[in-house]
């Protein structure tokens, strides 16, 4: 095992590329959630119970049945009805900050590729923040009803683990580098 580790260490460049990939995916996820919360405002037409206009040409274009067209409205109703009053504000805040921090993780990935230690050290703060956002989101989603829990808990749990791994790997890298310098 030790022999394998000695001959096949994960390179900083490879780790950097993985950080950038997850940074971009986290940005896309947070951006999409932000847009969703902007669009699905309380008091909008779905909540008023207005019947959907399922025109034949639109159904044909989207390849939908009439039932599916009606369920698209039910989907929004479900989202609005199962959101506690604080949920939208919290999600807007978390996804807004999440987008910025996720973009902030890109320079950390770039720094790993070029082995720039000061920026690599800031990765601990960056991944710590992303982990904190995931944790707050997870606690928030766990405090809602079963419909939102079913939608949010698994992806949040997945992201929490990804950011935990990145944080620990980053910390291990910085610690290893410091030990190497001391020796």
């Amino acid at each position, binding site marked *: 095992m030790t022999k394998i580790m000695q001959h096949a260490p*994960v*390179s*900083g*460049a*490879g*780790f*950097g*590329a*993985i950080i*950038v*990939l997850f940074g*971009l*995916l986290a*940005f*896309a*996820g947070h*951006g*999409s959630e932000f*847009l*969703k919360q*902007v*669009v*699905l405002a309380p008091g*909008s*037409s*779905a909540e008023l119970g*207005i019947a*959907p*206009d*399922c*025109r034949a*040409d*639109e*159904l*044909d*274009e*989207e390849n*939908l049945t009439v039932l599916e*067209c009606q369920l*698209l*409205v039910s*989907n*929004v109703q479900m989202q609005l009805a199962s959101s506690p009053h604080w949920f939208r504000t919290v999600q807007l805040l978390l996804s807004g900050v999440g987008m910025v921090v996720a*973009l902030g993780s*890109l320079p950390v*990935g*770039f720094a790993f*590729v*070029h082995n720039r230690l000061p920026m690599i050290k800031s990765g601990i703060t960056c991944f710590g923040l992303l982990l904190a956002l995931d944790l707050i989101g997870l606690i928030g989603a766990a405090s809602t009803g079963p419909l939102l829990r079913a939608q949010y808990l698994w992806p949040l749990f997945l992201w929490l683990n990804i950011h935990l791994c990145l944080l620990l790997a980053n910390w291990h890298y910085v610690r290893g580098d410091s030990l190497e310098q001391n020796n």
Partner: protein
Amino acid sequence: MVKPSNSHAILQMVLHWTLAAAILFLFVSSWWMLSLPLPSDDYTYRVVPFQLHKNIGITLFLIILVMICLRWVRRLQQNAAARSALQTLADIDQWLIYALVAACCSSGYLSSSYSGWNTEFWWLIQLPAWARENDGLNILFSDLHQWSCWLLLLAIVLHIAAAIYHGLRDDALLPKMFP
């Protein structure tokens, strides 16, 4: 002072990462926004996300044009040195991504034009309507948009796999595209 060739490389990097972030955002958001109620006088949930989707798509098309020009200029500056099979494969993947992004953006824009919806570029410039509403052509370009996007996703996965492969090998290739 940055040399002209360096400034080209920096611009290429900035455009590359802008493109990467925007494309992933478009994919993730489009998977969600197609679950919004169909548009009507009462249901306008799709207006903002679709307009944003079109704005980003048109911007990406312009970015791709600039990137193709930059690559063409760089190619003219480079000597016609012999290229390895892996480099040729990387070139093919690169050009495939450019072509597929252009195809996704143009088919999406044409589909929208034939659907009868207006396009206001970043809510500032009203783009002219190129065509009258035509359901048949709308569906055709919508299908083309969908299939070209799935192919693009596949090409992007290959591109990411290649980047991680080079990163793990630490063969000094990644620093060229990582600022």
